[in-house]
């Protein structure tokens, strides 16, 4: 089959690609650090737990984890989606300065869905060029899922994967290590559209320790499976913490591509599938979801940020098939 000119241009496209060697090195160095506890390592962890039971306080830091007596700035909590969990955020206050850049780990929050670190930098930095490393007291590394920053205030929110067992019981003694930061400067203000510029990364060493309790939250009663159009929607888990609601739905009868489809309308298109979480007052809860194909269909993982107890409605619509409303009761 011959390629036409556009196809040939795409095939020959010269673009800056990640260095495969560097990516490989990073992948292989991390692949030995399991995201979840593996069955084969249960014996090792049991042994570690026995040692803990014998009184190695270092590995049982929960008692040291002080909840935030002094209030953490509302802006940081808001940026992190933790307004409803302010009293569950651990005040840290660890400071590390290197090459003139002062980073403060202001607070930390961990639950069964994520681990959130609240930082403040002076002067402001951005995250495009460094790869923060987060480890717990067992030396396990945790992958960063997202990072957001406010170049005007110097506030940063780093979100990592959840702490592995047994940190949920013992609490976690964590260490954030950063080796490079990218300074960012802005012209303007929050009210006048600011123009921000990233500068060349600066190497250094910032080590920020913290002790954080893990809010495991509570399992919620699962709604019954329901059918909508060509698919069956079945809740497989639902948990609520002080700050979040996380649930998983297995969709049988559709593929992720079906759920991701948009109907062209000359603009961004209309999403065929939507899923929203509505608070007890009827407002749409800020949140995000991911889709993954599996053997049966699609796994939908939703993480929403909650502020009050009550009945939360999971509202699902599939264009042409109607709508579905399920209730999660959050005590």
């Amino acid at each position: 089959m011959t390629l036409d000119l556009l196809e040939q241009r795409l095939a020959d496209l010269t673009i800056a690609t990640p260095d495969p060697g560097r990516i490989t090195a990073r992948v292989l160095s991390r692949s030995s650090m399991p995201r979840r506890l593996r069955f084969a390592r249960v014996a090792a962890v049991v042994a570690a737990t026995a040692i803990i039971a014998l009184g190695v306080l270092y590995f049982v830091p929960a008692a040291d984890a002080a909840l935030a007596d002094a209030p953490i700035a509302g802006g940081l909590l808001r940026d992190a989606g933790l307004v409803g969990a302010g009293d569950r955020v651990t005040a840290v206050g660890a400071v590390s300065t290197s090459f003139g850049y002062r980073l403060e780990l202001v607070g930390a929050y961990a639950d069964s869905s994520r681990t959130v670190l609240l930082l403040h930098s002076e002067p402001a930095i951005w995250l495009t060029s460094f790869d923060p490393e987060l480890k717990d007291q067992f030396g396990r590394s945790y992958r960063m899922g997202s990072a957001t920053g406010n170049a005007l205030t110097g506030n940063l929110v780093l979100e990592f994967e959840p702490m592995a067992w047994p940190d949920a019981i013992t609490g976690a003694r964590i260490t954030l290590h950063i080796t490079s930061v990218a300074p960012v400067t802005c012209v303007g203000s929050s009210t006048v559209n600011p123009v921000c510029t990233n500068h060349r990364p600066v190497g250094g060493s910032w080590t920020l320790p913290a002790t954080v309790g893990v809010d495991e939250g509570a399992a919620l009663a699962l709604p019954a499976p329901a059918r909508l159009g060509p698919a069956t929607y079945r809740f497989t888990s639902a948990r609520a913490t002080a700050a979040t609601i996380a649930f998983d739905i297995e969709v049988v009868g559709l593929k992720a591509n079906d759920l991701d489809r948009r109907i062209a309308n000359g603009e961004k298109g209309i999403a065929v599938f939507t899923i929203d979480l509505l608070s007890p007052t009827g407002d749409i809860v800020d949140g995000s979801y991911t889709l993954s194909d599996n053997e049966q269909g699609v796994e939908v993982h939703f993480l929403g940020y909650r502020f009050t107890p009550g009945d939360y409605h999971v509202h699902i619509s599939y264009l042409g098939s109607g709508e579905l409303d399920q209730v999660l009761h959050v005590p």
Partner: protein
Amino acid sequence: MEVVLSSSELDSGVLTAEELCRRYAPSVCRFAAMMTRTSPDADDLAQDALLRAVRAIGSYDPTRGTPEAWLWRIVVNAARDSAHRGERARALLERLAFNSPRESESVETTVLANLRDDDLHAQLRLLRYRDRTLLALRYGAGLDTAEVGAAIGLSPESAGTAIRRALARLRSRLEVRQQ
């Protein structure tokens, strides 16, 4: 952590994490570069996709398909998750009144043969997620239409049709831009 492969294309009968990265990292990196808006995003996607594959290598079942199809399904899922995360992060960044400066765009080229690679790449990245995935798998990762279809759950014929439609939409975008 090893898995026995059935593909005759693989000269070794066993794929280790190292071998998987050695064979597929270049094409995964190129796919990531075509799918994402910035180099750090491409780095993150390539690393995330390969890390998922390496961690799942024990679950690969040769009776259910080729290792390539297995790998590219993982890569496509990683890209989809990355796109969702990116949308959420961008929304938050907008709320925080901070975004990276946009690069200026050239308007000097008017015909495809003279189109700069940067501009073609920019237009490609403006396509909707599904079209970008199709073209990045086909022309970035170098998969044939059957392999593209296996990665995203389409028959080879449907994948071929979808790729042609994606190309047509890219062409339209380029034509509109030249006007």
